[in-house]
């Protein structure tokens, strides 16, 4: 059996066990959905307030900025449903020393921990994102640009890859500073800046959000692509950027697990 086939089967097993686990807590599903919808709606208040006071901000109209918020909401849903649950579990493993059991298994450790838990029912915000996009384009009175939408789908892939790589980098920090169970919190609070078009930020902050923590590539670029105004070079750089971050996070992860000294033994 080929390596890819083997990992695919492993992936299926992991997903099945997450779903079974999730079905035990059905009431949580509804509660989580309501709470995250509430968060998304209240998070729209600053957007409304800002555009209530101004026609455009940093060159963006309300409808265009709404597209960025839509992308942010979509990525947040992916983060909540597919990335956060697994990687929070890793931090726990590191603290308790139970990562041993993962490392001993005859498969790649990064693969195992990244696919350990999926909670798709947390992703109710995917629907909210679609609603926000529809609303934006209906108000603009035109459909999204067709080649732009193709680019946007590609950017969805690179954005997810970036998000995942950034998370791996954050989690790697847990190997060095043990009691950090609030890493999620830190990550979310930085990621929150992606809610706004990157042009809002100036000078150093914009540079950081484009190259160091590439939030611009995750929400601003896809929104620009939908509007049909993302230059092809930017698209190419996004793909390269996602590749570089993926490679970098892999290197950092490998050197971090080399540092791991089981806390239990």
């Amino acid at each position, binding site marked *: 059996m080929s390596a890819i086939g083997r990992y695919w089967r492993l992936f299926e097993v992991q997903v099945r066990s997450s779903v079974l686990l999730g079905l035990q807590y059905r009431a949580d599903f509804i*509660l*989580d959905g309501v*709470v995250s919808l*509430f*968060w998304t709606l*209240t*998070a729209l*208040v*600053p957007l409304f*307030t*800002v555009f*209530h*006071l*101004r026609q455009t*901000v*940093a060159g963006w109209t309300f409808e265009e900025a709404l597209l960025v918020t839509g992308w942010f909401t979509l990525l947040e849903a992916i983060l909540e449903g597919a990335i956060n649950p697994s990687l929070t579990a890793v931090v726990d493993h590191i603290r308790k020393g139970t990562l041993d059991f993962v490392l001993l298994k005859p498969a790649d450790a990064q693969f195992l921990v990244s696919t350990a838990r999926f909670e798709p029912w947390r992703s109710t915000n995917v629907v909210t994102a679609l609603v926000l996009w529809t609303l934006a384009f209906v108000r603009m009175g035109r459909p999204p640009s067709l080649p732009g939408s193709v680019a946007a789908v590609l950017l969805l892939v690179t954005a997810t890859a970036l998000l995942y790589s950034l998370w791996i980098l954050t989690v790697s920090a847990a190997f060095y*500073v043990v*009691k*950090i*169970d*609030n*890493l999620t*919190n*830190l990550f*979310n*609070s*930085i990621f*929150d*800046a992606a809610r*706004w078009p990157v*042009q*809002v*930020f*100036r000078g150093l*902050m914009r540079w950081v959000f484009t190259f160091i923590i590439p939030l611009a590539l995750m929400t601003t670029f896809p929104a620009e692509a939908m509007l049909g105004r993302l230059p092809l070079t930017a698209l190419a750089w996004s793909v390269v950027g996602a590749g570089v971050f993926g490679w970098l996070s892999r290197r950092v992860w490998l050197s971090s697990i080399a540092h791991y000294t089981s806390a239990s033994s």
Partner: protein
Amino acid sequence: MSVRSTVRALPTLFRVGFAEMVAYRAEMLVWVLATTMPLIMLALWSAVAHDAPVGRFDQQDFVAYFLATFIVRQLTGAWVAWQLSFEVRTGTLAMRLLRPVHPMVSYAVENLAAIPLRLVVALPVAVIALLLTGSSRLPHDPLLWVIFLVSLLGGWVITFLANAVIGTLALWTGSSVKVMDVWLALFMVFSGYLIPVELFPPVIRGVIEVLPFRYQIGFPVELLTRGLDRAAALRLLLAQWVWVGLFLLGFRIIWRRGLQRFAAYGG
């Protein structure tokens, strides 16, 4: 639990809390870094005010406002809701109940013990804010400074008690972290943390006046940066302490009823 023995225990509790903060300083730093939201909002509002001021706010005013917000948030932090929720679930609350000090006193002192370390972060920010925006916005009336200090205390007490009330709900539901999430979402929007209260349309501003959130953060910040007169400041201070009273009352009722249900699982 006499008042005297509680007062005698305070310095020790504070020392323990402080030692704990120092031991987990990396974690503390992560918490501080996670409250950088005012800086993002600062960038956003500066972009909005780039061409023309918004209401009375020009870019400098936004710098002053949001740096003050960052500082006030550092000094009025409380996280009892999560602690309580966790300790109810694991049963460790029983340990606190056995001690001859009211659990809320020990939580309060633990939360306050973080302030010296948080000052280490907040003071440089205050210096930067002063260098960037000058001292002309600060109040010149000494009475207003007294009101500011009282409002800072009031802001902390409201944050702490709201946390305590929501945390106590865990005695009924097992975990009240979700309720706290809803509270936090409302807090973010209506406290002046993301949007200065003055920039809301008048109708919403009227609603915010009667909600508790503004008195947690917005009010102390406005005292520092807005040039309120004595009458307005005293009126807001009164409203703040009415909320302190309401929360205290609410907490006493809910705590007494909740404790009767407590059954230290596995503690």
